């Protein structure tokens, strides 16, 4: 771990602490968290790097990711092809940098759609489950449908969704969303079941607020935390699913730069010893998922008041030790 020079900031923070109002939020807390948990910093670094690469791909990539040079097929990694070329003469490096544009877009869109749809349905299911009448039937129907979706083998179901809707970006997003929605649905439902018994919900009910108003204004905002924590964990898995679909041939189609389809294209060459068309995109894919799962675990800690408090305590005691050490010196 790097030792930070003692500056005015640290003194200010320790003064804050002595005053009894150590900040457990805001930028300075976040930076302190990254310092005590370097693996979180690594995760954020990877994610930022991948996003930057995706945004600035046209400036960085030395070659057109869709334009093959048939004369230079299966070139070894080196100059000018940093990661070599594949069997058709496409530059692997350029395609690896362009790929997150597709992969991240699909994964993010799919996760957001599933989180929105899943948590709204979950909130309805949780809220109406103990009421009478039509609402209860709707709630039961939602839960049984989610049972059925979850009983499906994930990949077969996702491929079937893509096959029904036709092979396009939107249908892959929908497939990812469909497969993930039950997770959010269950999370939200269990949260709502406990939130809806709280006093302020009852108070709102007695004040005459409509069901919809209670749900939207009081229940959902107070049940969102676990859903948000799940979000970043889920993005990595969605990227994996997207790549897997493309690997089978049910996702993004061939000339578009995408990690899964690149791995599939290089599959035949690996047996003959040309490893680079498959290995590099896979490494990029694994690195991205790794980054997102680190970010996910940091969000899990930060979104959980208990673990967040423990971490804040750890940071504080570290600071105390540090200031004590400088005072002695």
């Amino acid at each position, binding site marked *: 771990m790097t030792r930070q020079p003692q500056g005015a900031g640290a003194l200010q923070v320790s003064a804050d602490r002595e005053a009894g109002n150590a900040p457990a939020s805001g930028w300075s807390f976040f930076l302190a968290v990254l310092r005590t948990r370097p*693996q979180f910093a690594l995760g954020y670094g990877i994610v930022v790097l991948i996003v930057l690469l995706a945004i600035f791909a046209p400036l960085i990539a030395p070659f057109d990711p869709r334009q093959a040079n048939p004369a230079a097929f299966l070139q070894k990694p080196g100059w000018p092809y940093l990661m070599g070329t594949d069997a058709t003469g496409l530059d692997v490096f350029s395609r690896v940098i362009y790929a997150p544009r597709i992969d991240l877009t699909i994964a993010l869109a799919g996760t957001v759609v599933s989180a929105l749809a899943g948590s709204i349905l979950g909130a309805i299911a949780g809220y109406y489950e103990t009421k009478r009448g039509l609402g209860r039937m709707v709630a039961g129907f939602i839960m*049984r449908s989610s*049972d*059925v*979706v979850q*009983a*499906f*083998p*994930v*990949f*077969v179901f996702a*491929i*079937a*969704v893509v*096959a*029904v809707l*036709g092979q396009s970006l939107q249908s892959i997003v929908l497939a990812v969303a469909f497969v993930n929605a039950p997770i959010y649905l269950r999370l939200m439902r269990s949260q709502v079941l406990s939130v809806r018994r709280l006093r302020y919900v009852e108070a709102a009910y007695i004040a005459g607020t409509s069901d919809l108003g209670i749900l939207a204004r009081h229940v959902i905002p107070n049940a969102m935390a676990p859903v948000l924590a799940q979000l970043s964990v889920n993005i*990595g898995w969605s990227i*994996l699913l997207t*790549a*897997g679909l493309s*690997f*089978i*041939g*049910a996702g993004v189609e061939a000339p578009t730069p995408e990690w*899964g389809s690149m*791995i599939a294209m290089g*599959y035949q060459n*690996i*047996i*003959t*010893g040309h*490893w680079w068309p*498959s*290995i590099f995109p*896979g490494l990029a*894919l*694994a*690195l991205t*998922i*790794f980054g997102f*799962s*680190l970010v996910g*675990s940091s969000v899990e800690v930060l979104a959980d008041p208990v673990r967040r408090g423990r971490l804040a305590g750890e940071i504080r005691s570290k600071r105390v030790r540090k200031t004590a050490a400088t005072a002695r010196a």
Partner: protein
Amino acid sequence: MQILTYIGRRLIFVGPQLVGILLVTFLLLKLIPGDPAVMMLGPFATDDGLARLRTELGLDRSIVEQFGIYLWRVLHWDLGTSWQTTMPVTSDLAQRFPATLELVTLSLLLALAIGMPLGVVGARNRNGIVRKFADIYGLAAGALPDFWFGLVLIFILYTILGVVPAPLGRLDFTIIPPPDVTGSLLIDSVISGNWPALRNAAGHLLLPVLTLGLINAAPILKMTLSTMERMLEADFSRYAEMCGLPPKVVARKALRNSLPSVITIVSVLYGFLIGGAVLVEIVFSWGGAGQYAVQGVLNADLNPVLGFVLYSAILSLVIYLIVDLIYFAIDPRTR
């Protein structure tokens, strides 16, 4: 006796659940564009021939009628014919399901053998080197795409080192397969004493099992680690410690109390991998059930997909039932 009534009560819900799953699959697959009759007869079929085939397949009836016919046939254990293999789905699956089961079972055994010990040791010694390794392993293996990791293993162990047979299927073409008894090549070749087949089948199994085993060890490891940690901090462990029991005994009691959650994660992984192993199956040309279903979806071949979904739904129901029975066995409080 109590257990028998419990199983009975569980089985009551199995029927409706299966019909629901079949209905959704059926409707979903019916929505897939693509006419099976056109696909079967090819581009040069006459309109007359197409019409006759549609009547024969029942495609000219209403969806409700079609589903009714399908359910009736399922009750008689007739899952229809795959037009791709021109074989009954039941006999296709009888061949492919054991291949997937053998692969998944062995992989999960390997994953358990890696994940549990690492998790237990890591939880007992929080600052040790094993704990560091376990944390890194859990994060890194969780991030690896299994189909890519399989390719890496093929590249290292087949292309460079040449220590495993070519990653094509479950047996070399030159090896005479053992007679089919259980469907598992390992067990069948032991039964028939066919040692070359045993060695060859084991060689073919090595890479896919390593792929799935090493990757799926990560969730088992994480689960063991976190539960074990919680159990070691639980009151009963502190009490045992205070009474002066040796750490080994305390750890053994904590492990026994963490077993239910380890078994849960294994059962979840098992259910997931029946269909989720399909990418690895494709990489190794395994000819498993998942691969069969994916081919079916991609070619508007309805019956194999329905058959696969039915089989895997039944299988996961059986697995969850077995898991519940194991809970009964290991947790005296549930009895």
